[in-house]
């Protein structure tokens, strides 16, 4: 019974996370904390922090966390399935239409206008996020180096991420040792 409820809740959450990401956190909180009281607010917030730390879409990570906390592995599978299903079906429908009508002049015209609009949709969060992460002249080189190596040199973001993780861990180690001495 609780598995079914989990599935339905996450189906709803999945269907309403248009544009994806952090926008669905309040919707999920209403379902999980307020309506069903599956988790306390504190537990929920821990989940949000963990979901942001782990790779993968936040919405999916959150459904893994909540599903697992409530009903173990079966709970996790059910909630992931629920949250993926709406996006999966809508993309399947659109993809089958798209492959058929992609060359229609009217569709081409629409996408011709949509493509630059997408760039503007990336530009705006970029500005907001750079303010939020505390960008200053001392750490500015990190995103700048990432931008240049990925967009202009063509290095895979994977290597950039690996190098970033390795460097941070080494620097943390050194700092810790210095602190002890």
């Amino acid at each position: 019974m609780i598995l079914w409820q989990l599935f339905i809740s996450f189906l709803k959450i999945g269907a309403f996370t248009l544009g994806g990401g952090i926008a669905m956190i309040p919707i999920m909180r209403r379902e999980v904390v307020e309506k069903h009281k599956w988790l306390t607010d504190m537990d929920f917030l821990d989940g949000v922090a963990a979901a942001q730390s782990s790779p993968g879409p936040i919405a999916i990570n959150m459904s893994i966390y909540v599903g697992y906390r409530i009903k173990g592995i079966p709970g996790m599978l059910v909630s992931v399935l629920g949250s993926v299903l709406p996006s999966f079906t809508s993309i399947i429908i659109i993809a089958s239409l798209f492959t058929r009508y992609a060359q229609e002049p009217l569709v081409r015209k629409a996408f011709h206008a949509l493509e630059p609009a997408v760039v503007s949709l990336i530009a705006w969060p970029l500005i907001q996020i750079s303010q939020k992460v505390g960008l200053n002249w001392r750490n500015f080189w990190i995103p700048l180096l990432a931008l240049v190596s990925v967009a202009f040199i063509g290095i895979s973001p994977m290597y950039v991420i690996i190098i970033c993780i390795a460097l941070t861990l080494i620097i943390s180690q050194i700092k810790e040792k210095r602190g002890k001495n």
Partner: protein
Amino acid sequence: MLTMFLTFVKVGLFSFGGGYAILAMLQQEIVVKHGWLTASEFTDVVAISQMTPGPIAINAATFIGFKTHGILGSVLCTFGVILAPLCLMLILTHTYIKLQQKEWFKNLFKSLRLLSVGLIAAAMVLIGKSAFPDLFSVGVFVVCFLIIWRWKVNPIYMLLGVAAFGMVFG
């Protein structure tokens, strides 16, 4: 199909910073390395993802899997992209509270967050390369940016409006 599955597992494993930050990686793997989509098709998928529910990585995986191998391909790619998060998130659910207090863990996410700013900028440049074939496109970009900046419109409504505008005046 196996290459495709493994590619999406890889993308899933390195998709830190959510949404926009992984666009650059998707673009490189899908357009540059494997040529599963052209540059402008990729941008179309991003536009479609913005208008449909669900995270962009999932949408892209489903779309590309379907385009190349039908329903089976889309199931496999979608599963691939969530496989790594599934495993890592399970570990984090158990250990997060402890890890949170470690200095190296905090530093790690401080620098990964900074990194994601660069990755988002890279995505913008990579997508921008094919998105501006003419002056019309530049105009659409400027107007859209002003609209988001000034009125913070819901992206879905804006994209629907842009699509309609394109059909009439494009």
